[in-house]
């Protein structure tokens, strides 16, 4: 059975590490749903969050193959009950004088921010879980979505536990 899984990686900030990881997915035919990279408390390391879809066997293989990469220090699965994950989205919605306020109101309900306003559009910035963002999309869809960008999930384990080596 296919399922979506969120992996959190601690990697050494070496040259080519991202291409090694993306190359691994490409060459073994695994699909990346999203991938985010960022710095960490230690300049030598980066943290990567990858969401993938696949059956149990493929997910196990992905974890094992990632672990084989020398630059990858740790791989863990961010299980929903033990972690928080969020996605950042910018959505450019068609808006004019007749409906602008309605969109702002919806955005407020989702704790979104209006980050750009123009005569015929506005951009909403919204952060949340995938479900929340899907729900927001659903709400603003009738006004016309001009374009959007989703950052992909990023996350941390709950509690005091940290990704270490």
């Amino acid at each position: 059975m296919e399922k979506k899984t969120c992996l959190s990686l601690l990697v050494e900030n070496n040259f080519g590490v991202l291409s090694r990881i993306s190359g691994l997915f490409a060459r073994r035919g695994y699909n990346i749903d999203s991938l985010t990279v960022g710095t960490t408390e230690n300049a030598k390391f980066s943290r990567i969050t990858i969401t993938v879809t696949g059956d149990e066997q493929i997910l196990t293989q992905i974890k094992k193959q990632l672990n084989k990469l020398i630059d990858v220090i740790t791989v863990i699965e961010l299980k929903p009950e033990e972690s928080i994950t969020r996605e950042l989205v910018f959505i450019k919605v068609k808006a004019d004088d007749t409906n602008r306020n309605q969109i702002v109101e919806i955005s407020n309900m989702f704790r979104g921010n209006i980050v750009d306003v123009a005569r015929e559009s506005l951009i909403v910035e919204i952060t949340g879980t995938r479900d929340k963002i899907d729900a927001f999309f659903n709400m603003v869809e009738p006004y016309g979505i001009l374009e959007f960008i989703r950052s992909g999930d990023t996350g941390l384990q709950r509690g005091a536990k940290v990704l270490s080596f």
Partner: protein
Amino acid sequence: MLASKLILKCLERENVEFVFGYPGGALLPLYEALRTSPIKHILVRNEQAGPHYASGYARESGRVGVCMATSGPGATNLVTGIATAYLDSIPIVAITGQVNRDLIGTDAFQEADITGATAPFTKHSYLVKDAADIPRIIREAFYIASTGRPGPVLIDIPRDVQLENLKTGLTYDKVDILGYKPNLNGHSGQVKRAIKKIKEAKKPVIYAGGGVLLGHAEKELMTFAEKNDMPVITSLMGIGAFPEDHPLYSGIVGSHGFEFSNFVMNDADLIINIGARMSDRGTSKLTSFEENTDFIHIDIDPAEIGKNMETTIPIVGDAKTVLNELLAKDTSGDHSKWLDEIKKIKQEHPLVYDADPPCSEMINPKVMFRSMSEMTSDDSTLVADVGLNQIWSALYYRIIRERKFFTSGGLGTMGYSIPAACGVCFATLDHPKQVFAVCGDGSFQMSMGELGVIAEHQLNVKIILITNTKLGMVRQLQCDVFGKGHYSGTDLNFDIDFMKLAEAYGIKGYKVDKNEDFNKVLPEAIKHQGPVLIQCQVHPDFIRI
């Protein structure tokens, strides 16, 4: 110290004796330093052969083999050989020159992104951006190549890095790579479960792969098999892990293995896989066994377990260590009925040596390899190329006692045998032994240039060249898949005078087309100090294995 000198000092510290290389602009500084280094440089005749030399050297000596090439075309010429080593888990380090740092990314003359190109089939690679990193990188490269599941590591060194002047020397010593901690011991809980399963098994089979050889666990395997009275089957890469003349030896599985071995595997109720990766070639003839067979899979690489086949009991660990853990417990059972059954299966699927005319009018390669087994020394090494010649030698040349058998099993790279056999010769210069390269007329021509190295160094290699004037194995496939006569692109039409070729290199040559003649010539060739080429003519229609 000049960085180029430091590179060689680092290689010396890794006990490197030979570098199989080919120079060029981006390696000029390193070659200047080589001139006065105790490390011996062997000028291969094409970089494509370099990694194969290193591979043969590594497999024979158990040490890391080193090859080297300049930037751009030199580096890209290494690609096939690196991939070959990767698929067979052979520890080699490849050093490439690169254009100056400020030129990287500009499509400069002879610039190629070699770390990018080889990423899919290197265990790891480095682009050296700062000469101060050299000691650490070289130490790490050798450590990564040779530990855990071995494999090729590439170090790409820009020309201007080689020319840097450093105040520090060999500062870096202890390897500490956060993301690389190979696991050697077996998981004790899984070992316990395995012991229980082994005790219960009525029809167990040990399936030995290349991991047994890489882990130097041949002795432990023998003790374990004898103690438990268990038959041993090998993969193509596992040939040599268990002697062929042992009563428990039960052949080679796979699409090109023995029929009876595939039947035995199919009948087993427990397969103890030690360091074989259950590749498609290894298992394609195994059909019924998945549902009612238990699998213990011992492998040092966790990713191999469960990759190609569901495993009942996974044990991640080094073959030798895990076998010793298993040996510490009593797992023996009475398998005499099962061994009798295997005998019967063997009788029902005998090896077929006969050939009909016209094939029988020339050399019968199966008989030839059987009789060759009687004439070679107990510690000889045979390197087989790819094609029918490879399968005939794998199946019919007997690997007994200290004999070794190497081939490109995973990638099936034609042209492997000659450079790899040369690597074996270099690894044994101080204790020369019998070394054979078996190749076909197709594969020979892919590495023919290396005869120059053989002649220059008077390597004691005996080349068994099987000429059937065809790309035999592909022709066999064309016949099997599309029908007799559907041959396309598999004729080696021009009749080469291989004897003249040998003569041109000052290499002793023999040409035979009868088994009796081969039997007469081989002892002479073995006695001859130095290289010999024996051309064995086999009928083009002899395509059965």
